[in-house]
């Protein structure tokens, strides 16, 4: 059962391979590699953190935390678990959602006030990072999802809510929320195939 367990993140092609080499250099304490990795991914990490936190300062702090964690744990990066980009974005999502939860538990939060003033998903794409065809398909697929599926998925992805929390937020049965998210993800996975 382990015949393709070595299949690496290189499925995406050249850029992923270059990322793997950078993480290898990072693991050996090469600060130049950290700079290159930053140049390749900071824009995407910042965008995700900003989309979750809706606050530029907090999002920049998350960027710093992401690259610190990547620096510390590069020695333990396991390519078979996913791409370097996915790894960095996963750290970013976790860190940003941790902050969001901490903010939610503080009554004096200013997040809601900032929400409408921050640039969100309508911001034009930067040319810093070339979105692959597959990402474009996921994005198109997301827009095409039925609203109730998209909302449930976005609450899980961008706000880090558990399925029970989403059910509560949307006043819907837990089973319904599970189905919505599963259907949404199945549709998006299907959209990866040309």
């Amino acid at each position: 059962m382990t015949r393709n367990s070595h299949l690496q993140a290189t499925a995406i092609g050249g850029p992923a391979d270059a990322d793997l080499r950078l993480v290898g250099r990072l693991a050996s304490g090469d600060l130049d590699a950290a700079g290159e990795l930053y140049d390749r991914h900071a824009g995407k990490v910042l965008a995700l953190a900003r989309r979750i936190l809706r606050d530029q300062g907090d999002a920049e702090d998350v960027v710093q935390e992401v690259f610190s964690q990547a620096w510390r744990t590069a020695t333990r990066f396991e390519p078979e678990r996913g791409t370097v980009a996915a790894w960095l974005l996963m750290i970013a999502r976790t860190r940003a959602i941790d902050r969001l939860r901490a903010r939610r538990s503080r009554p004096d939060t200013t997040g809601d006030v900032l929400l409408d003033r921050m640039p969100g998903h309508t911001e034009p794409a930067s040319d810093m990072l070339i979105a692959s065809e597959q990402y474009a398909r996921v994005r198109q697929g997301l827009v095409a999802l039925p609203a109730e599926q998209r909302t449930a998925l976005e609450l899980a992805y961008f706000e880090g809510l558990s399925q029970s929390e989403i059910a509560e937020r949307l006043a819907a049965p837990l089973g319904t929320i599970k189905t919505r998210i599963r259907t949404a993800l199945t549709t998006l996975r299907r959209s990866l195939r040309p």
Partner: protein
Amino acid sequence: MTMDRHDTIGAMLDEYALGQLSQDERRDVETHVRECDVCATDLRELTIVMEGLAPDAVTPPPALRQRVLSSLATQPQDPPRISDDAKVVTLPPKGARIRRGVHSGWLAAAALVILAFGAALYFSTASRRLLIEDVQEAQETAADLQRRLDQYAGQADLAVSILTASDMQPIAMAGRENATASTARAYWSPTRGLLIVADQLPMPPPGRIYQVWVIGGATPVSAGLLGEQGSGRGMLIAPPPTGVPGGTVTVAVTDEPPGGLASPTGSIRLAGSL
């Protein structure tokens, strides 16, 4: 792996990808995914979906780069958990064992005092939580090491059984298209399976992976995905795919979408026949 377990874990993959599982549940998923191709493929696709959901990149303020990089210079890095080229631990020869005697007894007592003092200090601070985390991490490392050992042992066993099978026949494979510089060799045993090693293989086209096919009859049958070993080396060790009739076979490698397909659609990059 039981089907029950496969189904249970399969139903948890969405939540895993969305970061909604507890640490124990995450570990269960990670253990299973290492052993199950189907779930590994599903999770890889979900990972691409997760990446795709992230918004487009924005331009970070120039000062942030300096701030991030200068903070790294002072941070230590974690020691590697384990790696494929894991360091060999050399045990001292038996004769080198420390002789127990009066001196070593005093040394041991002194060491105990120091340890006790250190431990008291350690526990008296907020470091206790760190210690627990360290222990958990050590346990994870041990479990991880065991999983990898099992995995490599299984692969090595299969490779040996293929290479030593009485019906094993080597097949020289030739590169095609952009892979003409590649050298590859397949070892096919209808009863034990297929071992294929390719060198100087170019990177697959963006968004594609290499899939291996065994063609015995009219229909090519997938043998699995060619694992990237770095530096253009690809390898697959797989049991014999079902549905390959006996007799002459052709082994071919094509590029396909992530996760592979049931029948080939991409260009043939390597091929060879008995």
